[in-house]
């Protein structure tokens, strides 16, 4: 009964959002600029990489994924601590010892239903954190996960400034602080096993596969149950596309997801300025040299004129 009312509610919400989401995804489908076509190429490159799919309509909020993540990554929290209280309902819930978090959302109109969101690293195709890291401490492996290497990290926290999903966390109270975030259990994936959270999910709300497979699966689900889902795969285009895709029955911003994210890779925002460096340096050298040359000529001419005048004056005096 609870499930029934929940579903009817989700259908209503989904219908309301369908028009909006449909409009935005059709706009994103046709590449109009070079950035768009570049992102298409990027997405093509990522299609064979490991990816994850979260289906909010299948999630019952049991938080087995949080427990499994806590155990697998030795995050040091007791099950009581994992389950205690419900704090922030957005990316704030993540911490140096919380790599993933299931947010819980209810609406006054229908307090008997709830919906859930999953906060964690989105493993972007071209991550802002990776392109901002000065020393490649963060990097995207060719298999898909975005991982951190503590032997290189300076702790400059530029990745935290750059990440549009507010994901990387810093150990503020440590003498030897680390950048902490989900690494998609890259070690397990390398052994052919799914990430800990996916393996722990009892309702198959979480799935792994290649990005292309999961994107097709997400579209298939929306097509099969169009009234159940918001017609939008969160992560298909957000920030240039991510390896973690989300489906939901409510508008994503109501589930704690950041909305209105640009559909281009964040690296595009610094790309022009970085590309200008050699032009600026060589151009400036030529300009400085030219100015110096002109200044020299001017002083030479002035000195010669002065010398000539003096010579004239002297000879005039002799005469």
């Amino acid at each position, binding site marked *: 009964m609870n499930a029934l009312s929940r579903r009817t509610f989700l259908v209503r919400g989904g219908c309301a959002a369908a028009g909006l989401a449909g409009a935005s995804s059709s706009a994103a489908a046709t590449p109009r600029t070079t950035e768009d076509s570049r992102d298409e190429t990027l997405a093509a490159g990522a299609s064979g990489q490991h990816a994850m799919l979260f289906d909010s309509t299948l999630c019952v909020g049991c938080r087995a994924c949080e427990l499994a993540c806590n155990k697998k990554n030795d995050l040091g929290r007791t099950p009581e601590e994992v389950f205690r209280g419900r704090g922030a309902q957005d990316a704030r819930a993540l911490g140096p010892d919380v790599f993933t978090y299931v947010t819980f959302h209810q609406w006054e109109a229908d307090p008997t239903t709830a919906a859930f969101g999953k906060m964690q690293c989105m493993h972007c195709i071209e991550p802002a954190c990776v392109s901002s890291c000065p020393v490649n401490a963060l990097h995207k492996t060719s298999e898909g996960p975005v991982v951190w290497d503590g032997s290189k990290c300076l702790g400059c926290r530029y990745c935290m400034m750059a990440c549009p999903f507010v994901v990387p966390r810093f150990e*503020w109270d440590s003498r030897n602080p680390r950048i902490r975030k989900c690494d998609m259990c890259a070690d397990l994936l390398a052994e052919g096993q799914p990430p800990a959270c996916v393996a722990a999910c009892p309702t198959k709300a979480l799935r792994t596969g290649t990005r292309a497979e999961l994107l097709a699966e997400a579209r298939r689900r929306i097509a099969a149950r169009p009234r159940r889902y918001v017609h939008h795969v969160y992560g298909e285009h957000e920030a240039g596309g991510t390896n973690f895709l989300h489906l939901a029955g409510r508008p994503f911003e109501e589930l704690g997801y950041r909305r209105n994210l640009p559909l281009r890779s964040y690296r595009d925002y610094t790309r022009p300025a970085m590309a200008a460096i050699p032009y600026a340096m060589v151009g400036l050298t030529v300009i400085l040299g030219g100015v110096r040359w002109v200044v020299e000529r001017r002083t030479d001419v002035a000195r010669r004129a002065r010398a000539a005048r003096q010579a004239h004056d002297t000879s005039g005096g002799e005469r």
Partner: protein
Amino acid sequence: MTVPSFLRTPVTRGVGMLAVLGAIGLGLIAYRFAAGLGAVTNLSDGYPWGFWIGMDVLVGIALAAGGFVMAGVVHLFGGHRFHPLARPAVLTALLGYLLFIFALSVDLGRPWNIWQALISWNHVSPMFEVSWCVTFYTFVLALEFAPVVFERFGWRTLHRWWFQSTPFAIIGFVMLFVFAMTGSPAWVLAMGGALGLWETLMRLGVMRRDHQMPILLITAGILFSTMHQSSLGTLFLITDKLGPLWYTPILPLLFFLSAVMVAPAMVIVEATLSARVVRHKAEPGLLDALGRAMPYLIVTYLLVRVSDMLGRGVVLEAMRGFWPTVWWWLEIALLLTAVALFATAEIRRRPWGLPLAAWATVLGLVVHRTGVAVVGLDVPEYPRYVPHVAEVLITVGIVSLGLLAFRIAVAVLPVYETHAMLTSPDVPTVPPLPQRELAPVSSA
């Protein structure tokens, strides 16, 4: 040189105060390394950068711009009469950069890995560019300041060796820098070719050398500075936390223009301050000439700043939200005040006129940079960041140590030149090097 030794000057009230503030800062820094950044800052995962990035990095580096601007004016643009102002400006810049590196290692979570920036290259990262600019420009500043030390201790062989070999080192450094930023051999060759051609023309006597300062060293200082000042703006292009009054794709250009704008103002501030503190007579004529140039620089910056906002259609943002609005209007008001003060000859003639106008310019820049790093940042999920008092005290402490270092340096080194030392390439009254070292003055 008959500069009173620092050791013989009594510890004045000002020096004592600086020492106390410096000690407080150092104590808090020790506590920060023992207990972590969270203990002394209000930074959070939503606001990972704050007061230190704003003041120590963005403002600090901009205020050091006097070094490259004055060096360029004197040695490249023919402004030989400004020579007495160049040395203090270079010293200010060198101390500024050393302080900045120290302050940065307090802000970095894992400063012991700082050398990784030199070996683990990510040439798409603006922070990578920043780290290389800091390293290379500090080195260039040290080379620019080196002759002062050579003069003080009479190291003529070293001085000659420095003069001869610096251009080659510079060509190598700049080429390495371009390679790290682009990974493109073609650009490396273009860069090396341009600098190499210039040096060759100077050695052949087609273009003139400077008797005291290798021209390529000055050029490299300008190149690295330009890149550094603008790359600090590039840093913020990738973040979506910055509000529309500050975020613009031309932030790198704005940062460069405001750095050039603040350079003469800092020279005026620094000259009038040291005139009072170390009883060095400021050069009123030269400072007035700088002051007359200031309105053009400030107005250029303001035009770009405001027309960019018009172009992006965000002018009305300047009326929305309390603190961003106040901060934006404060910046504009300070800079307009500075223009008015600098442009009025009667005010420039008053003893307080130039310093007041210069301070207005400096504060205008401080407001813009802190707008980018603190006030303009907005992460709706998180409570707003307000600096912790310890953050402010640490910055105050580091600046105090810098002022003390400047005080000691001007006391023991020939930073303020006497008239006997004033030489221009046209009239080499006291050539620091034997004649055979010099290229032909003019072959035309």
